[in-house]
Structures are given as C-alpha cells and as structure tokens.
C-alpha cells in the first residue's frame, strides 16, 4: 500500500504509487462536460469516479462538517465527498479527492482547504486531496497537469458547451420526448471512446466532431411553437449543478420554457483574460502576458469552431467572448474579476440581446462577488436594455424551494405576458400584411 507522504507545510501528497492504487473521486457540476472530461484522466492512467449522488442528505452532511455560513457550493461539494466516503462504497484507504482551485480573490479558492478541514473533522485525514488548477498551486508527484492534458480538457469543455447548447435549443420542441437527451448520451459515449484512446482533441478532429454533432441535432423532429425563452446566469456551481439549484433547468422545462445557459468556455476565457487585464491595469510581467495571450488565442479558436458549426445548421450561436466583453464596456470595469466578475453582468446583457432577456440570476446566499456583479448591476442592465426581466435567486440549504419557484414564476408571468404581446403584435402585422397582399392582388 502507498505510503503517506507530506510536504513541508504538512500537506498530504498524492504520490506516484497512489496513482497506481487509488481511485480519484470527482465532484459533479455540469454533467455533460464532466462526463466527457473525466475520460482525459482515464487516458492518462488515473482511475476516477464522477460522483452523481443527490438528495438532501448531501447538504446535511455538508452542514455537519463545514462552517454553516460558508457558501453553498462548498457545502455541497464537500458534503458530496464526505457522503460518498461514509457510504462504504469506497475503500477509504485507497481513495483520493480532486477539486478545482482558481486562486481568485473570492472564497472559492479556499474550498480545498475547507475540504481538508472537513476531512479531518470526519476522520478521513489519510485521504489526499488534489488541486486542479492552472496557476501551479499545490504540486503532487502523482498528478501533474500537462499541456496535452489541458488541451484535451479544453476540447472536452467545448464539446460539452456544444452539446448543452444544442440540447437546450432542441429539447423543448422535440416531437418524441427524450430524443435530444438520447443523442447527448450517444455523443458522450462516442467522445468518451475517442478520449480514452487519446483522440478527439486536435483542431481538425474538433472541427469535424463539432460539425457532425451540430448536424446530428438537425435530424431530431421538432415542432417550433413559441415558448418563453429564459437565460440562466450566476455563480458557476449553482448555475450548472442541479444539486445546487434545486433542478432549475428541469423546473424551467416543466414551466414550458426554452433555457439558455452560457457555456463554460466563456468562463475559462474570462479567467485567462483576467491575467491580461491585470497587467494592463496595474503593470506586470511581459512573459506572463504572452503566455496568457497564447492561451486566449487557443481557447478562442475552440470557441470559433463552436460558433461556426452551430451557426451552419441554423441554431442560435453563443456570442463570441470578444463581443460579450464589449457589452460591458462602460458598464462595469474589466478589473472586477473575482468570482464570475464582469462576465456575469456581460452574460445578462448578451442573453437579453439574443432574445433571452428573461433571466434567472442564481447565486449562493451571501455570495460576495454577486452582490457586485449580479444584484449590483441589475438596475443598470435594465436601464441599458429594458427587455431585461431579471430575477435574482439565492440558494442555500435553508432557502426553501417553494419560495424560489414562486419568485421564478413571477418572472415567468411577466415573460409570458411579454411573449403574448409580441405574438399578437406579429400576428397583427402578419394579418395586416396578408390583407395588404390580398388588396394588392
């Protein structure tokens, strides 16, 4: 069995031996993306399990081991880990945990430390935690994030973004219920196989996959009836994870809406761009600037591939990062980078522009950056574009679902009224036009 080794500060390391013997547990956030990306790890010889557990016990476990005023995502992610460790399903002496770390100025950079504290409290001190980050924090001999791995993960993200976008645009209108979900699952398995074999990440492979994915969705039979279009923005975990937002996507679907969740690639671009903006604002290292720029360009290429392929088959493409960014020029500074930063404000403007002005802005209760970029900017967004119909929803273990849904329903009631107005207006112009055509003939 692998020996437990510690670094100078007393951090338990993930060793090479552990790589052979251990299973790494991954927390769930965005199911499509994470299901594809985990195969990158498999390809590089890591055994992983993606936790798909749900239910109220997870929050309960979280409450027990994490400071209750900590943000909800930390509570859930840590709760999910410990719940899994206590379930008896895993050999707790041969398991490691992996968690992302951004290194930004918000509380999220501390999740990994809160997780370690919680493990200690729960008696799992022997379990190593691996930090997944692009900043070179916390090195481990048994796990190194290499450039090829980053490239593959980036590919996974862009596939995920495309599948999520297409499913969201097709599912509400499909004639045979379940078609789109089946297609998503088919693609997850196709891409997983490619990833396992180390394929599917070069520029040409991506272009052809992206194209084929978009085309395949045109084969689903649909009936395009007018529906309320809702955009979802927010703190990244609560935005994507059903566990965090009480199944928000499903609720909106049940209410007869088409949902638009801006993709994860935009967030990645934002995080890299922050380094460039920092240097622009405060001065700094030229080399860092060049590296960040190169990464920007690479991600932008992937984004372009996504935009081109979905546009080609008549779907609504996401707006390009550069454009999204331009929307907040003069609204909020590019220096506001903690959490989702100005991107959150920008996404609300972008969604409104694209016809998804009915927006749920989701955040954990007491989310600090969202006081600024979310709730703090709603008023300004409305003054810029009065089509914006935004409701801010707080999530935490004590916030009951009824209240959340009731507030969302208020937003939807206004949205439906606007939709009906719009429909009757188009109908009027159409009838008018027909009349005119008739009179002309």
């Amino acid at each position, binding site marked *: 069995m692998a020996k437990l080794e510690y670094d100078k500060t007393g951090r338990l390391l993930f060793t090479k031996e552990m790589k052979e013997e251990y299973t790494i547990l991954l927390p769930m956030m965005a199911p499509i993306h994470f299901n594809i990306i985990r195969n990158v790890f498999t390809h590089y010889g890591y055994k992983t399990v993606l936790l798909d557990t749900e239910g109220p016990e997870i929050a309960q476990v979280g409450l027990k081991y994490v400071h*209750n005023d900590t943000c909800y995502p930390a509570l859930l992610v840590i709760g999910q880990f410990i719940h899994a460790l206590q379930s008896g399903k895993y050999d707790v002496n041969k398991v490691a945990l992996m968690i992302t770390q951004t290194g930004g100025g918000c509380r999220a950079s501390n999740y990994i430390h809160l997780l370690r504290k919680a493990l200690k409290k729960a008696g799992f001190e022997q379990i190593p935690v691996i930090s997944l980050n692009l900043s070179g924090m916390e090195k481990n001999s048994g796990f190194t994030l290499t450039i090829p791995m980053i490239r593959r993960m980036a590919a996974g993200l862009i596939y995920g973004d495309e599948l999520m976008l297409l499913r969201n645009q097709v599912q509400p209108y499909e004639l045979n219920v379940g078609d789109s979900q089946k297609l998503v699952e088919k693609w997850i398995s196709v891409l997983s196989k490619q990833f396992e074999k180390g394929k599917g990440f070069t520029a040409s492979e991506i272009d052809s996959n992206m194209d084929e994915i978009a085309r395949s969705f045109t084969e689903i039979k649909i009936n395009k009836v007018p529906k309320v279009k809702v955009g979802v923005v927010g703190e990244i975990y609560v935005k994507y994870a059903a566990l965090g937002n009480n199944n928000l996507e499903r609720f909106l679907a049940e209410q007869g809406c088409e949902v638009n969740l801006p993709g994860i690639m935009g967030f990645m671009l934002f995080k890299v761009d922050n380094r460039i903006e920092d240097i622009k604002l405060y001065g700094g290292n030229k080399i860092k600037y060049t590296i960040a720029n190169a990464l920007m360009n690479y991600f932008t290429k992937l984004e372009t591939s996504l935009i081109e392929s979905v546009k080609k088959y008549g779907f609504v493409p996401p707006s390009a990062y550069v454009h999204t960014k331009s929307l907040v020029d003069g609204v909020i500074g590019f220096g506001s980078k903690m959490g989702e930063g100005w991107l959150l404000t920008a996404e609300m403007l972008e969604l409104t522009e694209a016809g998804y002005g009915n927006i749920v802005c989701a955040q954990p209760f007491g989310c600090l950056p969202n006081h600024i970029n979310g709730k703090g900017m709603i008023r300004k967004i409305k003054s810029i574009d009065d089509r914006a119909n935004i409701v801010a929803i707080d999530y935490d273990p004590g916030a009951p679902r*009824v209240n959340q849904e009731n507030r969302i329903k208020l937003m939807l009631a206004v949205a439906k009224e606007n939709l009906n107005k719009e429909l009757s207006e188009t109908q009027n112009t159409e009838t008018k036009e027909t009349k005119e055509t008739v009179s002309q003939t």
Partner: protein
Amino acid sequence: MKIGLDIGSTTIKCAVLDDNNNLTYSTYERHYSQITQKMGEILKQIRLNVKGADKACIAISGSAGMGVAESCNLDFIQEVYATRVAVNTFLPGTDVVIELGGEDAKILFLSGGMEVRMNGTCAGGTGAFIDQMASLLNVDIERFNELAAQYEKTYTIASRCGVFAKTDIQPLLNQGARKSDIAQSIFAAVVNQTVAGLAQGREIEGKVVYLGGPLTFMPELRKQFDKVLDTKGTCPQNSLYYVAMGAALCADNTIDFKTVINKITKYAGSGNFAFNKPLFKDKKEYEEFVSRHSRANVKGKDIQGYKGKAFIGIDAGSTTVKGVVLSETKELLFSKYLSNSGNPVPIVKDFLEEVYKLAPKINIVGSAVTGYGEEIVKNAFCVDYGIVETVAHFTAAKDFMPDVEFIIDIGGQDIKCFKIHNGAIDNIFLNEACSSGCGSFLQTFANALGYSIEEFAAKGLFAKHPVDLGSRCTVFMNSSVKQAQKDGATIEDISAGLSLSVVKNALYKVIRTSGPDELGKKIVVQGGTFLNNAVLRAFEMEMGTPVVRPVISGLMGAYGAALYAMSCGTDTSSSILTKKQLEEFKHVIKVTNCGMCQNNCRLTVNTFADGRRFIAGNRCERPITKKSPEKGLNMYDYKLSLLQSYKPQEGSRGKIGLPMGLNMYEMLPFWHTFLTSLSFEVVTSGISDKKVYAKGNKTIPSDTICFPAKLVHGHIQKLIDMGIENIFYPCMSYNFDEGLGDNHYNCPVVAYYPEVIGANMNSVKNITLIKEYVGIHRRKDFPKKVCEILQKYYPDITLKEVKKASEAAYAEYEAHLKRIRDKGEEIIKRAEDEGRQIFVLSGRPYHVDPEINHGIDKMIAGFGVAIVTEDSVSHHVDKFPTTVLNQWTYHSRLYAAARYIADKDNMNLVQLVSFGCGVDAITTDEVRDILEKEGKIYTQIKIDEITNLGAVKIRIRSLLAAIGG
C-alpha cells in the same frame, strides 16, 4: 362569473366577481395550515351561497397555493402578478403598490417601466412579524395599533429581519421602555425594512396604494409609510382581496366543483419529504427514558412558615422570569417560573411578595440575580449580587454533575453553551442574532398551528417520519414547514422535526460541532426548552450519548444564582428589599437622550420609591458616573482620532470628496496625502451616524450585503449633499502586500463596491465619480497607471506631479502604520505596568467606525481592559502556514494577531464580524483554531445594524470571568 382564491401563508382569501367585475362574494379566514381542509370548506360555501357558481371560472394564487393548484389541475397565478392585474383593472392610474402579507412584502412599480419586487429570502416576515411583536407585548393587533398612536419617542430597531428586531426589543422591554413607544418603533422598523429592502434605488412617488392585511388593519402603519415616503397613500375598499380578485380576473377555466372538492380532500401531498428516524421506537423506550431523567432531582421542603436562613436566586430571562428560594442545606423551598410580558420588575415584585406571604419570618441572608434583566432587578430590589448568566448556569450544573465537561442551555430566546476545562469556563458559544430561533420559536410554531406547546411537543414523541427541516433561522423555517406540509407531512412529523431542528441549530450553527467527541461525554442540558422531552430526546439522538437533564431544568439560572449567593457567605444579611420596603415599592420610567457623546444613546431612566435611579440603554458608564472612560488605553479611539486629523487644505484644483466607508478607513492617509499633494482640497464625509445611513439606504441593491458596505451609500450621498462635485473612490482588487499571506487581495465587496455605487445611485450621475481600478500593490507602476486615470479628468496633471504625490502618499501611509504600531506598544506596556488585561479587538479597519462597532470598544474599556487592534500587533509575526488559503491582506493580519497573542497570558482576542461577511466564515474558524491550539478562548462578536449590546456584554463578562479578570 369568476372565482379567485388567494392562499397565503396564514390566511385564505376568496373573491367572486360577476361578469362586470363587481365583487359579489368574499371571505377572509385564517387557515392554521389546514389548507386543503379550509379550501374544501370555502368551495362548498361558494357553491351553496353564490348563484351560478357552477359555471364560474376559477384560478388560485398565493404563496401556499402552488402545490394545491398543481395537484387539482387548477390554474395558478403568481400572487404579485395577480395584484398587478387587479390594480390595473380596479385602480387605473396607480403608480406604486405596497402590499404587506403574512410573510411577504412587495412593492410594485406600475408606471414608467413596470417592476415588481418581493422581499428576499432573508427579510421575511412582516405580518407574521408584527403578530409576533404584538404577542411579545402581550396585546392584540388592534390594541397594538392604538398603542402606536400614542407614542412619544421612537427607538431604533434593526430593520432587517424579525429575529434581529426581537433582540432589540426585548432589552428595551426589560429596561422598562414604554409599550407605545415600542409599538411605534416596530412600525418604523417595518417601514424601513420594506422601503430600504425593496425600493433599491427607485423613488416611490405618485399615486401610492396600500394592500394586504397589516396595512388594512393598522392605520398607524399606513401613517408611518406616508411619513417616510412623504406621500398620502390610499388603502382602497376590498384591500384584502386584491390578489384573490386578480386571480379571478385571470381565471378562464370553468370549475368542476365535484372533481375539485374531491381532489382536494384526497390531496395528501407527494409524501416525498426528507425525514429522520423516529424519536422513540415504542412506548417502552419512552418510559425508560422518562424514568432515567427523573433521577436528576433536587430535595424539596415546604416554604410555608419557614423561619430559617434562606437564599434567593432570580433569573430574569428574555421571555421568562425564574425565582428560587433555597434553605441553608440546599433544599428547594420555593420556585416560580413566570412568563415575562416585557417588564420583569412587577413580576419579581410579585414573586418576592409571595415568598414573604408564605414565610413571613424567613431570614434571607443572600440573594443574587442573573439574566437579561439583571441590572434593573438588582437595582430595583437591592439584590446583593448580579452575576453573568454563564457563571450562574455553571454553578448550577456543577451541583448535578461535579465533573461536568459541557453545558448547554436552550432558553426562550438564547442558546448558551460552554465547555468546562480544569474546573473553569473555557469556551463559550452564544447564538448570534441570526439563529435566535430557540424555545420561543417552538412556542410560536405551536401557537400558529393552534396548539399549546405541551400538546405540540407531545405529538412529536411518536411521530413516524420526523421531517428534516435543516437548521436555519425562524424565517426560513416557516417556509420549510410550509413545504413539508405541502409534501404531506403530518403535524406529528412536523413537531418532531422542529424539535430536531432546534437541536441541530444549536449543535451545528451555534457550537459548530461535528460530534460528541469534541464536546466531551459529561453533558448537562438545561433551560426551559429541554423540559420538552422531544427536544431532549432529539439532542441525545443527535449526540449519540445520554445526558443529564435536571428536573429543575428551567430553573437552573435562578438555582445557580442562589447557590452563588450561598457561596458568598451564610452569616451575612441580605440587602434585598424587606416586606415593608416592598409594600412601598414604586417604579417610574422616563425616556431621554444622553447627549454626552456622539453615540447619543437613548436612555431609560428608572426611578424607584426611595429616589434611587437606574439608567439603562447606555453603552458606556458616562451618563452614570459623568466621567468618560479611561483615556489612552483604547486603540479604537486613537485610530479614529488619527483619521479625523486629516483635514482639508485649500488647493488650486478644487474640492474632491472621499467617502469614509470600507477600506477608506485604511486608505485615508494615503489618498488624502496623495490628492492634497496634487493640490486638491480633500474633503471627507466624516464619521458615520444614523442620518448618514438613512441618506443612502434606499439605493442599496442587495439587502444581504454587510452593513459596512450599506453605509457607503450614505457617505456618497452626504458628499453630494455637501456640494462636492468630484468624488474619488477607486476599485482595488489588491491591497498592500504585508508579507503575511499567500496573496494580498481585498475582499470582493471592498474591492468593487465603487461599481455598485456607480450603478445604483442616481445622484452620482450629476457628479464625477472616479472609480477606476488602481494597484497600490505595485509601487513602481502605480504613478504611471494612476496618472493615466487622473489625466482623463484633469488633463493638466503631469506624471512628475503624480510621482511626487505618490512618494508622499506611500510615506504617509507607512508613517500612519508606524503611529498605530507605536501606540500599540505603548498601550501594551502601560497595561502590563498597571496589571490590566489586554484585548485585541480585531476585525477590519472599518470596524473603527462607531456606527459599525456600536461602541463595543467603549463597553469593553468600561471593564478596565486595554484595547489594541490586529494591525497594531500583526507585524510582530512572520508569515506562518495556515490551514486555509491566506490571501486577503486584512485577514492575514487577523491570523498573525491571533498567533501573536496565543502565548501571552495577559492578552486575549475578540473578533468583530460583520453579519453577512462571507470571508469571515473562513477566518473565524481559522482564528479559533490558532487560539485554541494554545489553549486560548476564542470570542466572536457578530455585529450588524443592530444596536443591542446585551448579548455582547454577556460574552465579554463571561470571558472576563473565565480568564479571572
């Protein structure tokens, strides 16, 4: 014909409209959570009483109506939307609607860009809140309204959430404030809460309409709205039925009475709720449990005609007053458990009279009082000793279990827990204002559901599926209970679930434990709430260990006080009022303002028969001793005076304003010097007060943000009102790198609050707000970068000037830090020489603002303790590994300060935490760990808009008692 049902949190309203939209039939009833039953009855009544109802259309609205509507296939109309439809139909031309319901507050802006606002999850409870307050004052709603009309003065009551307000009101009552003044103050708080929480920067003007129960039934509340909004709103006929009428207007599906009534009766919810194990397997297990706990008893003796020595202990708690009389051999002669309807004085008087009546020849040799009402009772009745509650409870618990390791007391309104180490109180946990839902919380629920607390608790004992309700505050709990009912939980399940939630709240929110190992195995539980067997059982289950609950669980505070009096000597005689003095007892209350410093505390002056006076409401001893506290040992005073020394100096570039909020408390020396050097006349907004806050509170977009951030709005407005046309308030992601942490960020709120100001305050549109991003952490790059920014506004500024100004600014900042550090050394040295305790009253730079710290520094100084700050000691420590990512400059100072004092006997750390500070969820645990590793006691004080210092005082006194200071 159209029917609308509005199923709210506490009532069901029904409206039937004819084809011309005339209201032909309406009902308004409380449903006591029996929603389906009541709804069935109402529908039957409609069918019976309204002609033509069979062909009517129906729709449901209201916060509790969603589930029923869904399961009965009836249309559901969101209630705010329904209000809007009704107002547009019946009151065209309305600009703004203000509607208060049982638990909701809403503002609808109808004209000029329609907007609807509902209270956020945190600000719940308006109607229910007023109900609660009325029951606290022991009056009904009508009387409450009448009381408010007779007010003379108003008190400031926290206007964020019901629980906060309650903690403000209770001490006022205990200090003898007039009910009418309190009633009016509550109305003022409700109005503030609604306006500040919901208007969010939008002016409420034009034709204003008031709707909903509270505004219909309480004209004084409407008057208060009129006053604050400077308008004359109207409360239309049928103001209770607007939601129901709106639903009716939206109804377009015909009702099939038979099917609907049938479905409603069968509606039992999904049965799909999270639940816990039953409290007891069976009757037998319950009986064993009862018999085990009956063993922790005390000896009794009849007081009738008792002539011997006796000791009296009184616990004047927040909702109850407890009194005991003990004999010399600790026999319980007499005890009384009385509910406190606001003022403890008459209750204690009755208690003493009864004692003298039963035993006219009793020889009282010692007496002690503890609890919220300690001071007033001690003064009113000349009680010998006043002791802090924690000490009283520890004394009592030791009597039952000499080697007790952990004591938890859940009372009506507060939770007190403490660990015992080496026979002394070691670690104290008190509930923060947010999680005050304890005993009175169960009581409130029982009453709301139509039961007495005893009946309600008994119901939970054998519940099959106790609902899992989590561990949140009362406001949240209301909604969780609603959800559980919707999902089909029975009253039994809910009762058991609430008992569990009280326990979980105490364990995981207040104590923050993960299990019994941390707390020790020797546990004594006490307080009135533990007399409830369901709570006791839930506690044992959650801890997985049996505990001792004394039979006199509810009297432990008083019992401990009596024991304390006994320990002070048995041969003395008590100064407590004699039978004769008691007969002449008189108590007059007058309210006034202190005016001896800028806090201007509202004082309650109590005068007793023999002319003795007792003053309450004061934060320091000044109004009593007429002397200011010891100067020179309070770092907070010093820091404030340093900041006040930066005065405007005339400059050729004109005036520029700096708002004194958030990090300006740290950056003032820097920016003042920088801008003065650039020939600006630098004007600050000065120190905060209530008026400053009121200037800006209508423009706060997020009601759950920390209070220091909320204050910034007022400071900006004050500058604008002063005629300042240029305000300098830059965004700062990064702070100075003091080399203590892994990074040197500001928290997101401090970093970017200027953005919120720019986006939400209309008034800044008419001035220049310089809120660009600056990086003071890169000293070399700073002049060039900041010069580019300034040149946008002042093209004539040169880089040379800026470089010079920067040098001066950095130098002044360093000099400022040095002044603070030198003063720190001086205070520590002097305190050591004088043998004083030293507290590091730590927090953030802006906690120096007296409006934010509420004079806690002065209160502590009043105990003769010297006060230093985290930034005056943090430089003594080198960077060291922490178990959290140490990435915020201000917070790194906290860790360093904790480390610094950890091995110093004469120093302790008290951390001030602003409510809603997410970052402190991380720092508090870490600071605690650092201190506890070295065997130090960690003390945290949560502060908000709240002004009640009662709980803070208990904490500080307990800490002083524990360290023997």
